[in-house]
Structure formats: C-alpha cells, structure tokens
C-alpha cells in the first residue's frame, strides 16, 4: 500500500512512487498515451462512489437505529 511507504518518500529515501490505477492514469497522461490506466478510471471512480454510498448508507441506518433505541 502506498501509504505504508509515504515516510520514505518524505525523508527522500525514495524518489518517487506511483500509486494505484489513478497513478497509472496520471503517468499515462504524462507520457501522452492512452492505456489501461486511463481506460479503467471511469470504472474506478464508479467503484469509489459505490463504496462511499455504502459507507453513508450504513451510517444512516446506524444513526436511525440509535435514535430509535434512545426513544424506546
């Protein structure tokens, strides 16, 4: 995982790091080519939105149940 290596980047023990599909897409853009990274970004964004939606939905249920529990 990229976050695990962030301290090495900050201390300049590592020069650079490309993280995940977005990193691949950014690198492709830098090289001026279209490849798997850029192609997958739409799906990746949709997947992220889906996970965000699930987290929000889970929390809505959690707080609704908590309120109900407090009322009873």
């Amino acid at each position, binding site marked *: 995982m990229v*976050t*695990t290596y*962030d*301290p090495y*980047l*900050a201390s300049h023990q590592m020069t650079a790091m490309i993280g*995940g599909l*977005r990193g691949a897409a950014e690198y492709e853009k830098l090289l001026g080519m279209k490849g798997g990274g850029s192609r997958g*970004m*739409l799906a*990746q*964004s949709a*997947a*992220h*939105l*889906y*996970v*965000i939606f*699930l*987290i929000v*939905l*889970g*929390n809505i249920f*959690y*707080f609704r149940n908590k309120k109900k529990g407090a009322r009873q």
Partner: protein
Amino acid sequence: MNRQIPLIVCFSFGLIMFLQYFSNHTIARTMNLAILDYWQIIFAFTLVLGVVSYIKANMTKISRGIDRPYLIVGLLGMISMPIMALIWGIKADSPFMWMFENVQAPMASTVFALLAFFVASASFRGFRARSMQASILLGAALIILLSRSNLPIPYTEHLSEFADWIRNYPSMTARRAILIGIGLGSLTTSMRVILGIERTWLGGEK
C-alpha cells in the same frame, strides 16, 4: 551442547555482520556478500523442507480420505510444474510459463479481486461513526476515496490537494511513528538475539 553450539554460531555471525557494516575493506565486503548468498541458499533448502512437508501432510489427509479430490488436484498441480520445467525448460514460451501465465496468474489476481467485494460489504457493515476516532477514520477514508475519483464535482482540485496534504503530513507522521517503533523494536530484539537472551528461535527442548 545441542543448544550451546547454535547460540555460539548465532553470536559469531551476528557480530561479524554487525562489524562488517563499519568496514569498507575488501574482505569485509566479500564476506558480507557471501553471507547474503548463504542466506538465499539456506532459504532455498527451507523451501524444499516446506514442499516435502506439504506433500507429507497432503498424503496423510488423502489416505484418511479428507477432501481427497481437491488435495490430489493440488498435488498434481505442484508436481506438474517441475516436470514441465525438466522436460521443456522455463523459457518464455515454454509450457511451464504457459501454466504460470494462464493458470496461476489469472487465478491469483482473481482471488485478490474477490476482496473488492469483501471491502464493499465491510464498508457497509463496519464503517460506523461510533466514536471520535471512528469518525476521523471514516472522514479520512471518504476524503481519499472522493479525491481519487474523476468526478465532475466543484472544488475537485482543492479536494485533491487536501487529500494529498492529509496523506503527506498527518497520515505520514503516524506511519513514521510506527516505523520508528519498529526500528527501535527490531534493534533491541536483534541485540537480545545476538547476545543469547532471546532464545525462542531454538524451539523446544530436544
């Protein structure tokens, strides 16, 4: 005596490797490289040990009739690779590499991809803002996820910058503290091992 000799060996090799770090002498450099090679060679033998144990354990299970077909498939898969390598070699277009590219690699990455579904269900079930700590965790995750999508929302650039700041400063500094802890922990454990205070690696009395 059974325990004394390994302890002496451990101490000697530990001391040699520690001292060679401070020397640029050719003998020290050569010894360093040689011992690193020894490491890999001994590791290769431990792998052989592991494979033989795997075969033995599977054979026992097969003879008892537990999950017989699956274990046979596993064993056949394992044995087929060295046989193919022996007959046709391991060049790029060999059957050995074909097995790797069309059987091992797709299955391994699909098993990894399966985790996407578990991550999604964990997000729904477990990711609740129960306390201050949980809310911070949730907030950080949401900001990173939002910023790492190409969404046509306002202030995307600012969000991306903020997410980068979170990663580069508060998140990085916590990870750095963990790293320093690991560094100091490894240091003391290594010293205990070399000095023979830590002896758990010797195993039980036999």
